[in-house]
């Protein structure tokens, strides 16, 4: 009786990797989450009266505009990295630049928040303050998670993980990064400008 279990089950490669499929489902939930926040903000901002409420510190629109450009540029560099990876001429520097720009975005956002808090604009100072920190804070947490993923990807590239193993990671993480970079201009326009 043959009790050996030497046979291995080889799985047929699927057109969409498990990592990408999983990331798509994550992004679907994140998209609905931000849709809920945006919807609540729109309904509350359309209430009678002045919006934003009076006596609020002026938001740093200009600084955040340049910060938005940084994040969009980070997405562009990520796109170029993915393109170079798929062309089998991977340029690691592009990934590093994307990570650095994303980190700078977070640092600038954090600095501006500290200034706003010092001016008395907090999550409990007004309804607008609550929405501001909730929406912008939720996005910042997602960017932080994305930066963590980029650090992991950067490490995988640096230690020389094979292209075959790297491909699903690159696809999934780049998808997430594109999403968080793409949603920020909408949130910026809604909260800072509209």
């Amino acid at each position, binding site marked *: 009786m043959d009790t050996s279990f030497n046979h291995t089950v080889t799985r047929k490669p*699927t*057109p*969409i990797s498990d990592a990408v499929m999983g990331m*798509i489902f994550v992004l*679907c939930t994140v*998209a*609905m989450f931000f*849709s*809920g926040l*945006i*919807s609540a903000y*729109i*309904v509350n*901002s*359309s*209430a*009678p009266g002045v919006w934003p409420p009076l006596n609020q510190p002026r938001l740093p629109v200009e600084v955040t505009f340049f910060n938005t450009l940084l994040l969009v540029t980070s997405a562009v560099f990520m796109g170029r990295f993915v393109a170079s990876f798929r062309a089998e001429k991977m340029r690691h520097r592009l990934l590093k630049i994307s990570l650095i720009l994303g980190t700078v975005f977070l640092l600038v956002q954090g600095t501006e928040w500290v200034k706003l808090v010092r001016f008395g604009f907090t999550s409990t100072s007004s309804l607008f303050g609550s929405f501001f920190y909730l929406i912008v804070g939720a996005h910042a947490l997602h960017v932080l998670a994305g930066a963590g993923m980029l650090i992991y990807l950067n490490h995988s590239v640096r230690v020389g993980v094979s292209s075959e193993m790297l491909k699903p990671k690159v696809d999934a993480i780049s998808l997430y990064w594109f999403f968080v970079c793409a949603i920020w201009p909408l949130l910026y326009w809604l909260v800072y400008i509209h």
Partner: protein
Amino acid sequence: MAAILAFPEITDACPMCQPGFTKDQVSAYKGITLLLALLPIVGGTALFLWIFKKYKGAGS
């Protein structure tokens, strides 16, 4: 529809159907209701079609 006909009081649950809301608020509420209803349908359909296309392309 049958539930509304049987229990018309449930329409009182609609927050925008109460007096005191402005036209802007009602418009905003209708807009976001439409967004939140259509987004998963459109997104889900697009995702399904993309997955179908990928698998069909791989099959051929």
